């Protein structure tokens, strides 16, 4: 089956920043993304779990974007502006996609 090269960018970020991030990457021309829940984790700022969150302040989500390789830099620049001052992790992986016309 015919596949096409693309990049999978995963941004792990505080839930409270989600809308700011997706608004920003949409402005940067990203047309598709999915949001995955994160149950908990650990990092430089300590461990946390979703159970027992009373507010929206501390949960995290993953924003996953599949994009054409040539659009990667625009996305990273945009994402970096939002992520820079906040906790969060950004990873990029090479992937193949079906139906490239959709990206």
């Amino acid at each position, binding site marked *: 089956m015919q596949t096409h090269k693309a990049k999978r960018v995963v941004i792990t970020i505080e839930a*409270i920043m989600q809308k*700011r991030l997706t608004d920003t990457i949409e402005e940067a021309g990203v047309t598709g993304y999915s949001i995955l829940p994160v149950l908990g984790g650990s990092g430089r*700022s300590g461990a946390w779990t*979703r159970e*027992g969150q009373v*507010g*929206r302040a*501390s949960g995290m989500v993953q924003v996953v974007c599949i994009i054409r390789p040539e659009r990667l830099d625009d996305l990273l620049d945009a994402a970096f502006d939002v992520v820079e001052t906040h906790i969060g992790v950004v990873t990029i992986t090479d992937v193949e996609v079906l139906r490239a016309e959709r990206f």
Partner: protein
Amino acid sequence: MADILSLAADNLLSPVILSFILGVSAALARSDLSVPEAVAKGLSIYLLFAIGFKGGASVASHGVDATLVATLAAGLVLSAGLPMIAFNLLKIMTKMSRTDAAAVAGHYGSISIVTFVAATSVLQGRGISSEGYMVAVAAVMEAPAILSALWLISTGGTEKRMDGALLREILLNGSIVLLIGAFVIGVVTGEEGLASISSFIVAPFTGVLCLFLLDMGLVAGRGLRDVRGVLGGGAIAFGMLMPVIGSLAGLAAALLIGLSTGGAVLLMVLSASASYIAVPAAMRVALPEANPSIYLTLSLGITFPFNLTVGIPLYVTLARLVTGG
């Protein structure tokens, strides 16, 4: 004194507070007891809806007091002003950075609606009535403290922190909208509306509060586990001193306005309590470099339990002494 102690004992030995203590103990013992996030959110929707509605229905039947506007204004001033006191106190009592101190200060101007709810249930148990519109005052006090905190930081000379999107988020956050919305529904539908849903929002209320406080206890207990690493002695002392100072400011305002004993208690509780929902969320957006462990642990791990167990009985006793209620 005996009065405080007996009231405190009464309060401590109620199912509501014991449920909280159960939660704290389970968390400290590292039990895996936990309340799913969705259920906890469902319970808080119930509590906000019920407390707002009942406040509104009470306004509908007792009419609006001439003191309503004055109390709302007092709430505004307390919420905006208390962070200044808190900030200076933190500068004296702790070694926190300017940023952390401002973030913490913002929490103490704002309010904890669960502490408010717990206080209304204590008042009800004691047969002390209060102004129904106090829930509207609670809503009004949520946000101004955030602006004060950001102002405190900006005096240190940093860029603009507050934008339109954030302001909108703060003013339209779910808790405020639900509380005010339910209050308005209560005002509009009055006694009749209350009657039609009282077996949902009145009868089981205390029981639901028990389960919610069980969960709050679990969260607070998890926070307490790390207290040692996060907070020094000065900060812990602040977490118990500041609510008392806040409550006295609330009491003074209540006396000026001429609130009933119950109303005075509730204004004291609002002033004494610290936010752990709206303000932390706003701080993560506007002050990401402030350490969330500090303000969450102080607010949820120290001040919230303090108010629930020692504070409320203390404020009730003070208010009765002073208002003669």
